[in-house]
């Protein structure tokens, strides 16, 4: 393991100690032109991680365009949800792919 990676993990662990509830990572896949699950429930501070299992490039793009994660085939990408509310998102390349994140405080 590289020193940089150890430092990174150590930093992650300390970060986790500092907050009362540990942030979760919620996984969403893109497979056969759907986000699965299409709707996820998260808490502020959680990470949403997408994995593209399709043979095409996709994206996870907020309906209000506040974030845009481009996902080539077999790649993952993520965002951290920072505020409570409902976030609708689409694949900007295939706008018939729709997803939703419900963020609790």
């Amino acid at each position, binding site marked *: 393991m590289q020193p940089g990676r150890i430092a990174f993990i150590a930093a992650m662990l300390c970060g986790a100690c500092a907050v009362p509830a540990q942030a979760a990572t919620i996984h969403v896949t893109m497979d*056969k*032109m*759907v986000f699965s699950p299409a709707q996820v429930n998260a808490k502020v501070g959680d990470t949403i991680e997408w994995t593209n299992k399709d*043979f*095409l*490039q996709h994206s996870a793009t907020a309906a209000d365009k506040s974030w845009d994660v481009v996902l080539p085939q077999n790649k993952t990408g993520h965002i951290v949800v920072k505020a409570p509310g409902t976030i609708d998102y689409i*694949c*900007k*390349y*295939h*706008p*018939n*792919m729709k997803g939703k994140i419900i963020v609790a405080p």
Partner: protein
Amino acid sequence: MRRSWMAAVAALCLMPLPAFAQAAKPNDAQIAHIAYTAGALDVAAGKQALAKSKNKEVRAFAEQMVKDHTAVNKKALALVKKLKVKPQDNPTSQALTKQAKAKHDELAKLKGAAFDKAYVANEIAYHKTVNNALQAQLIPSASNPELKSLLETGLKIFEGHEQHAEHVGADLK
């Protein structure tokens, strides 16, 4: 059978886009050929747009068409190889090709914003036609389940393209 194919081809002379629905029920070898041809023609249209357009959004869309349809056709080729199906040329594929050639020549005479608008309008119409054909004719006629499944995924992809093209078209206005 032959007569209804001919009727479909004859209908093309009158209509702006190929009339799939009038053709007789195609077999898997013909379906594979039609689907592959439809994809290859859109790759060619995308390449024409990349050679001519300077609009960032139009270029991004055209690039995606080239990439997506190439990827789908690669899957289709791998599948027909696995199934030992030899794609069979047919009047629908020929009509599509003829129609695309005419559109290519028409677009070749346009420049700038006029080209962009005409390309995107044709992409919307083309995807609509192909999607209707997939839904109404090609998917129901496909007998091999793997071919049917690929066509169904293809339909979702191309419906995405149709919506994407509509967004690009709306931004051009």
